[in-house]
């Protein structure tokens, strides 16, 4: 893990806990849309989303 992604990792974990299991999907969906908007590169955002859909079997 690179140094600058760690604060994001920590913050997401804290907000997921604060949101609770019921609101976690909504929270993460908002995060994904907002990060995608900030990225301002639709093909790259789509590729990242597709990549994230892999290995979900846990």
């Amino acid at each position: 893990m690179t140094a600058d992604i760690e604060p994001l990792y920590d913050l997401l974990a804290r907000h997921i806990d604060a949101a609770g299991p019921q609101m976690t999907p909504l929270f993460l969906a908002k995060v994904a849309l907002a990060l995608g908007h900030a990225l301002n590169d639709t093909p790259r955002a789509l590729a990242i989303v597709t990549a994230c859909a892999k290995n979900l079997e846990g």
Partner: protein
Amino acid sequence: MRPAGRGPLESLYFTYPHFDAPGPDHDRTRPMQVAIIGAGPVGMVAALELARHGQASLLIDAKDTFNDGSRAICVARASYHILDRLGAVQPFLDKSLPWTTGRSFYRGQQILEFEMPDSADEKFRPMYNLQQQYIEAFLWQAVAREPLIETRWQTELHGIEITGPGATLTLRDPHGDYTLHARYVLAADGARSAVRRLLNLRLTGENYEGRYVIADVRMDHDHPTIRRALFDPACRPGGTVLIHRQPDDIWRIDYQLRDGEDPRDATREDRVRASVAGVLAEIGHRGGWELEWWSIYSANTLALDDYRHGPVIFAGDSAHIVPIFGVRGLNNGLADAQNIGWKLALVLSGRAGAGLLASYTPERRGATLDVFANASKSARFMTPPTPGWALMRDAALSLALRHDWAGALANPRQMAPYSYAQSPISADGAPSLRGPSVGTMLPDKALTKGFLSDRMGPLFTLIWFGKAPTVAHPLLTVIDQPAEGPLARAWAAPEGSAWLIRPDLHVAARWSGACASDILSFLDTILERQA
């Protein structure tokens, strides 16, 4: 539906006329060039467009009055141009409420305000609200004064047989059954089209989840003509509500039923009253209100595979059912009617070959498929079909409380007119020109006197930048525009460039440095295509 104690046509603000059937001695069986089944807005516009080009028609309707209820209420700019070309627009302008703005709210907080494109160069506003009874009444004024249109009310279609060049109709009125031959039959008889049923034709497509109740109320409510959309409001958690102002202090409340809510139950008068009261409380209406009319619908995208079946041509809801979110039901129906109207008039008068009619399905079914694509996006937002769509919709709405960019996802994508770029009768002789593309609707422009759209001839119009050469064709009006004038600047049109505009104001072709023979040969190609 109307409140208990009021008849189906007892409106708070509109008096339905009664139309008699033809008398017993009326000459019923005389063959007709065009029979139009359905005297609703689509049938009447088709008859008026045919008449505008000198072609007679017979309008047939089973009812003895107009359609009940306000139904379609949003009439788009392109439809006002259709009415304007028919010389019928004035009563519409006098009565309807123009609007440009929409506002969307999420849990009571505004997340989006959108403006539809408008400017002083446009003769008409982007949208007008007007109850369908008035739409039909104003069209009827024009139909009733047109000697080329015969209307038979209380006349029901019972059979249709395709016989050689044309079709034989079996009709029934209070005086009995009779048959009538028509060279062409226009089926403008709505979503439950008798013509479609009698020919065993089926609409194909999808039904979306989600049902809506539409209710009209009369109330003194101080709010401009702005479309309001309420997502997840306190009065209907998880649902969507739309509110539109109409003339005569009538307000349209449109609300989504919850999953599992029984439609029969939801359309009971007491339930409708309670739901409307909840919406009115939410928008801060404290005064009284009267319930006028209500109905229920679901969002479907259904269309015929071919709008033409030999001599029978389908237009409007008989050919396509679209979700209301894009306000394309009535508007696309009127565009169908105008499209087939001018083509049929040219074919029947021998000014074009029957092959011209082959462009009707690709152009107008193409417009329907375009609506489906946009409406599917709107429907997915208004009534998310799966948990995934629902979660992303909620995420977008939640973000939109603080971020304008997310509010744009809630934009209903209304009313962009369809382009006929792919039509068999479109041709782009100069793709590098920057002015209006082939297939698009003519963008209007304020000129020193009136608007560009006012200068268009009855059929085809050639707009030539610079000194136009002599281009003589019986169907063509030529107007020249100064090469350095305001229109040339707006379109970045170089001297010698030319645009050919169709009778329905779409761009048929464009050229740079064209000569008269190019234009005449293009006109001959599209008009003399053989079937």
